[in-house]
C-alpha cells in the first residue's frame, strides 16, 4: 500500500502548489455560501433540521461539480504532459496508480467539505440540529463526491485530454442523476433498476435527512469500485494498444 500512499501524496502536493485546488475550493465555497443563504435559510423561518437538509441538498450539487473538475486532470493531464510514462515505467500496479489518485482527489474533496462546516455551525448557534444528522449528511456528501470522482477518473483515463474528460464526466454523472426521471417513465422491473441506479434521488436523500442506510453506502462504494476497476482496465489496455 505504500506505493498508493506516494501517489496520493504527490496528488495532494500538486493541489497545494497549483492554483487548481484553491480555485475549485474557493468557487465551491462561494456557491455553497450563496445557496445556503438563498435556498437553505431562505426568507421565512423554518426548522433548523429542514434548513440543514436543504444545505446538504445544495452542497451535494457543488460537491459533484467540484468532483468533476478535481478528477478531470487525474490521468488525462499526466498523459498530456508525458508524466504518465514515469508511472507506467515504474514497478507500480495500475490499480495502485488509480487508487492513489482517487484517494488524493477524495482527500481534497474532504478538505473542501470540511470548510463548509461553518454553515451548519451557524445553524447550531441559532437553532437545534443533531450531531447525527450532521455526520450522516457529511458522510453522504463524501460518498456521492467520491462516486463522482471515481466516474470522473474513469473518464480521465479514457479521454485524450482534460477538457474531454470533464465533458464526458459531466455527461455520465448527469445521466446517473437523471435516471430517476427515466425510471418514472418506465415500468417494473426496469423502473426499479433505473431508480436504484439513480446516484442522487434514491440514495442521497436519506443522508440528507440524517439517515444512514447500509444499502445506500454499499451502492456508492460498489459504483465507485466498478468505476475504479474500469479505469484500471483502461490503463492496462493502453499498454497493449499504445
Amino acid at each position: 500500500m505504500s506505493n498508493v500512499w506516494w501517489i496520493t501524496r504527490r496528488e495532494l502536493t500538486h493541489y497545494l502548489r497549483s492554483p487548481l485546488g484553491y480555485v475549485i475550493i474557493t468557487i465551491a465555497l462561494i456557491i455553497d455560501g450563496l445557496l445556503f443563504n438563498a435556498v437553505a435559510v431562505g426568507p421565512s423561518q423554518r426548522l433548523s433540521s429542514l434548513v440543514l437538509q436543504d444545505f446538504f441538498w445544495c452542497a451535494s450539487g457543488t460537491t459533484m461539480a467540484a468532483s468533476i473538475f478535481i478528477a478531470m486532470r487525474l490521468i488525462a493531464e499526466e498523459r498530456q504532459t508525458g508524466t504518465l510514462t514515469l508511472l507506467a515505467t515504474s514497478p507500480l500496479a495500475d490499480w495502485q496508480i488509480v487508487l492513489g489518485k482517487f484517494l488524493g482527489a477524495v482527500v481534497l474533496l474532504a478538505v473542501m467539505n470540511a470548510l463548509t462546516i461553518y454553515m451548519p455551525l451557524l445553524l447550531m448557534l441559532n437553532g437545534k440540529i443533531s450531531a447525527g444528522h450532521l455526520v450522516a449528511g457529511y458522510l453522504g456528501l463524501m460518498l456521492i463526491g467520491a462516486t463522482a470522482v471515481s466516474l470522473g477518473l474513469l473518464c480521465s483515463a479514457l479521454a485524450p485530454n482534460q477538457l474531454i474528460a470533464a465533458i464526458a464526466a459531466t455527461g455520465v454523472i448527469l445521466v446517473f442523476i437523471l435516471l430517476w426521471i427515466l425510471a418514472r417513465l418506465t415500468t417494473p422491473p426496469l423502473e426499479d433498476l433505473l431508480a436504484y441506479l439513480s446516484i442522487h434521488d434514491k440514495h442521497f436523500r436519506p443522508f440528507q435527512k440524517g439517515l444512514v442506510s447500509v444499502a445506500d453506502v454499499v451502492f456508492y462504494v460498489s459504483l465507485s469500485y466498478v468505476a475504479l476497476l474500469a479505469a484500471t482496465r483502461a490503463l492496462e489496455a493502453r499498454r497493449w494498444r499504445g
Partner: protein
Amino acid sequence: MIVVDKVSKLYGERAAVKDASFTIQAGEVVGLLGLNGAGKTTTLKMLAGVLLPTAGKIAVDGIDLTTNVEAVRARIGFLPEVPPLYPEMRVGEYLTFVARIKGLKSDIEGHVASAIADTDLGDVRDEFIGTLSNGFQRRVGIAQAIVHRPALIVLDEPTAGLDPKQMVHMRTLIAKLKARHTVLVSSHILNEIEHTCDRLIVINQGRIAAIGSEAELAGSVQGRGNVVVEVRGSKAAFEQAIRQSGVVAKTVIDSDTDGVIVATLELVNDAREALAQALVGGGLGLRRMERVQLELESIFLTLTGNKQAA
C-alpha cells in the same frame, strides 16, 4: 543482458516494429539509429514496459517482460523524449518520489544524493523543476532514470533541444553511466551516436536493418572499399597499371598536376596490396594510398535505403 526476440508491435493493421531481434550485453552503450517514424520510440517503449509487444519476447536479466512486467520495470530506467517531470516539485523532492515509486525501500537519501552528484544537479537540488532551463530539466530526466540504479538505462533522444555545450555535457554524462549501467540510446543525430556508442542498431521502417560497431557497419556497406592514391607518373601509365591490377572496379581521377595524379579508386575487394604492387610494377611512384572511411551518415543512408533521396 537484454534479449529482444522477434518482437513486433502492431497499431491496428500497421506494424510499427516488425520481427526485431537483438541482444545487448551488460555494460554496453548501444545506439538505436533510425529516421523519424522508423520505430525507435516504439522499440524503446516496449523495452521500458510502457507498451507490451504484440508478438515476440523481451527479457531483461532473464525476466520475461510480458509475464513479469513490474519486475522488468524495476530493472530499467527510462528517459522519454519529453522528460516526465512535475514542474511544481523541487528537484530533490521529485527524485525522492521517483525513488520510492521505483520500489526503493532503504537508503533513499543516498540514492538521490548519488543521482544528483552523477548529473551535477547539486546547485539546483532545492529549485522547482519548472523554473529550470531545458538543459537542467534533461539532467533531471536522466537523474530520474538512474536514481534506482537500474541495470538498463533507456534514453530516447537525450540531446533533443540542447545547445552544443549542453550536448557535450550530455555525452559526457552518458559515457559516465557506462561504468555502472547498460545504456540503450536512440537518436537520429548521427554525430551524437557516433561519439557515444559501442555498437549501433539501425532500424528502418520497423525492421532491424543492421547491427554492429560503426566499423562493422561501414564494412558491410563498403564491401569492396574505396581508396585514394597519389602517384607520380603519366596518366597513360597509371591507367595501364590500374587495368593490369585487376582489382579496380571504378576510377575517378581527382587531379593530374605536374605529373602527380590523385585518384579515388573503388576496389572489387580490399586488395590494397595487389593495387600497390601493380602501381609500383607499372613504373609509377606511389606517394600515398589511404582507405576512404565512410562517414556514419553515408553508412546510415545506405542501410536505410535513402542514399538516392539524400
